[in-house]
């Protein structure tokens, strides 16, 4: 029982980081979804050439949606956004703003590298003068995600090792308590597998129960956190955005716990020694 609880607490710590990671990753995903790429066109591009560029972009499987903004629309938008500065453009006599396409990419092309590659490629298309997206922002986001990933992996590895050690010690105690029985079993012709299987199963059950309990604890903490957010009224709306693990991940975590349990008992059995008879 103590072993299950300690394993549960250890795995719950891993779970907290995993949950944090999953949610931050999701948040990063939404932010990345919002990234629009501006494809500016040459100043004096004929309308059939514009149509060619559009066709080119539409045929691109990376492109999810496309919106054409003509020079006039760009000017209109500028004036609407910066009414006090509109006289600056009036003074120029002609509209200096280029026509452009606002492009949203398909989810599988939204990674930093994919966006970079895509922008490079589109820059080569005749009639395109410039491809613009907020590179600094995307790079910063990628760095944050990578850092969280590294921390999550590091903590996961350390705490998983702790879980293996806890289970290994529990199994070692059981093995020690049953050393006479094991010696007798060996003497009467039990195979190594016959002797090992019950202890491996015990490790698997300990690991599975520990990880299930850790998920229950996490879910409880998660609900408490959401409740807290709702009642305090801070971060309004954010409580609906944070999510718990989907069932498939929960099952995978129980399986991981089971695996750690089996690993723990395997370590103990190996240390306990092969032939005690």
């Amino acid at each position: 029982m103590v072993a299950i609880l300690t394993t549960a607490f250890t795995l719950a710590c891993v779970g907290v980081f995993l949950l944090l990671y999953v949610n931050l990753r999701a948040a990063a995903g939404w932010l990345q979804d919002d990234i629009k790429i501006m494809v500016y066109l040459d100043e004096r591009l004929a309308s059939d050439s514009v149509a060619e560029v559009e066709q080119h972009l539409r045929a691109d499987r990376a492109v999810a949606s496309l919106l054409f903004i003509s020079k006039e629309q760009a000017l209109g938008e500028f004036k609407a956004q910066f009414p006090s500065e509109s006289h600056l453009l009036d003074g120029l006599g002609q509209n200096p703003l280029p026509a452009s396409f606002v492009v949203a990419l398909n989810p599988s092309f939204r990674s930093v590298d994919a966006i970079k590659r895509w922008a490079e490629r589109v820059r080569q298309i005749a009639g395109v003068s410039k491809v613009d997206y907020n590179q600094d922002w995307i790079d910063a986001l990628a760095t944050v995600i990578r850092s969280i990933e590294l921390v999550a992996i590091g903590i996961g590895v350390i705490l998983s090792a702790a879980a293996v050690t806890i289970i290994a010690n529990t199994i070692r105690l059981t093995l020690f308590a049953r050393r006479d029985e094991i010696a007798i079993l060996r003497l009467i012709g039990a195979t190594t597998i016959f002797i090992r299987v019950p202890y491996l199963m015990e490790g698997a059950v300990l690991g599975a129960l520990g990880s299930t309990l850790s998920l229950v604890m996490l879910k409880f903490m998660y609900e408490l956190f959401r409740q807290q957010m709702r009642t305090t009224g801070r971060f309004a709306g954010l409580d609906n955005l944070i999510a718990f693990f989907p069932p498939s991940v929960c099952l995978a975590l129980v399986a991981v716990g089971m695996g750690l349990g089996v690993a723990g008992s395997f370590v103990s059995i190996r240390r306990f020694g092969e032939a005690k008879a």
Partner: protein
Amino acid sequence: MALLEQAPKMIQLIHVSKQYDQRLALSDVTFEIGKGEFVLLMGPSGAGKSTLLRMLIGAERPDEGQIFVHQKNVTALKSSDVPYLRRKVGTVFQDFRLLPKKSVFDNVALPLLVQGISPADIRRKVTEALRAVGVEHKRDQLPAALSTGEQQRVCIARAIVNGPVVLLADEPTGNLDPALTSEIIELFKLINARGTTVVVATHDPLVMAQVNRRVLTLSQGRLLPEQRVLG
């Protein structure tokens, strides 16, 4: 020796030696035991009897020499094959080595259980073994509720429940009084009469007098010239 040469060999030791640190446990021991023989392995404590019995079930390996049991070269046996040798060799211990939390029935059933024998066959064979040693009526009791003589009988039942080709007993009467010793020796004779080769290691002269068969004597790890008492 004529009888020995006729019988197929069940146990064969060829120049077997074993040393623990600086102490010589066995030195150049060579002998053969034929199928169906009843042999006493005599010698004082520390003479190497237990080491020799442990070697016969692959629990120890000699430093030199070879050991054959039931035509299997035990010295060359892979550790994964050792359990299968032990299923053919029943072992009886001085301290019985019964599992205290299991009933008499469950203790005797253990060698069958590890082989994956069906529950019906286990019931039948355990009942037969318990009947053969005369403790069938104690089948549901825990070992602690039995007398020492009964515990040794249960240990013997566990050793024979598999129908082994060889029965090894290490000081089986060490904890028993003379009357119980006689009973246990009679039981071994009965098992031997059914065709099982029996090797009993003992330092008890009373056992030698009662068994009255071939005697191998070890002294400080060496085998002394053989005495044969024909009953």
